[in-house]
């Protein structure tokens, strides 16, 4: 293995970058191979990858159904709107 290739394959910063880019965009065939090789040998980045996916899932799956504006804020909002309406 050449020194340059070795350096890339063992670079976790680059590997985690490629993990993000692969998930949401495109990476080249060469990058994909590098990443594959890296992940085969690096359990820390495999953990990262798993957690990265989980974070995206948690973010998009955020449950907002139960969220409500409080009554006082709504009342103020209502009054503000009515006041503006009466101006016209």
């Amino acid at each position: 293995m050449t020194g340059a290739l070795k350096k890339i394959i063992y670079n976790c910063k680059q590997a985690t970058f490629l993990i993000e880019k692969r998930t949401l965009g495109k990476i080249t065939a060469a990058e994909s191979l590098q990443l594959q090789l890296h992940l085969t040998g690096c359990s820390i980045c495999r953990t990262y990858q798993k957690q990265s996916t989980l974070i995206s899932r948690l973010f998009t799956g955020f449950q907002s159904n139960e969220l409500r504006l409080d009554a006082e804020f709504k009342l103020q909002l209502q009054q503000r709107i009515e006041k503006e309406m009466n101006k016209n």
Partner: protein
Amino acid sequence: MKEEKTAINSPLKSDPATWVEQYADYLYRFAFSRLRNEEIARDLIQDTFLAALQQVSRFEGKSSEKTWLTGILKNKIADFYRRQASKSITEIRTAEIELQNFFDADNGHWNMQHSPKAFGLDDNDPMLLKELGGILNDCLKKLPALWLSVFSMKHMDDLTSEKICIELKLTGSNFWVIMHRTKLNLRACLQKHWN
């Protein structure tokens, strides 16, 4: 002039006095899930209603009131994102300095104290996920606003990276650097506060 007169004389297709009751909670959820900040979400809801009042005479009922109001809110959120893009430079610098310690400057290896460790939880346990989601929300609040904007536009609105770059005046490589840094930051924050 003629057009304007017709608009004033014809009855409104939408009654602003009913908006809060009908749509405030819905719009708030829409805004909050993108911004993860109560105060900003509230402000934008108020801005949305006030902007809608200005335009209500032109609302023709071609789309539903809800769709129309949501469209106005989306513009308000986009304006907010654009403002953040130009003003969070110091914040970003601080966050970047933090990330510099994550990897060995020489070979890009994880530095031991920052390296990912398993959360040790079952990914399908709804209770644990809910708890983790709560921690994530706190972590999101600490992100530089520009990073959250980029992350949110990509994940919640499913916009293409090209569109986001145009909106926020970023280069393509800048976009990916931000996505990477955001994830590194959030992951570290979760690890720090989990357990």
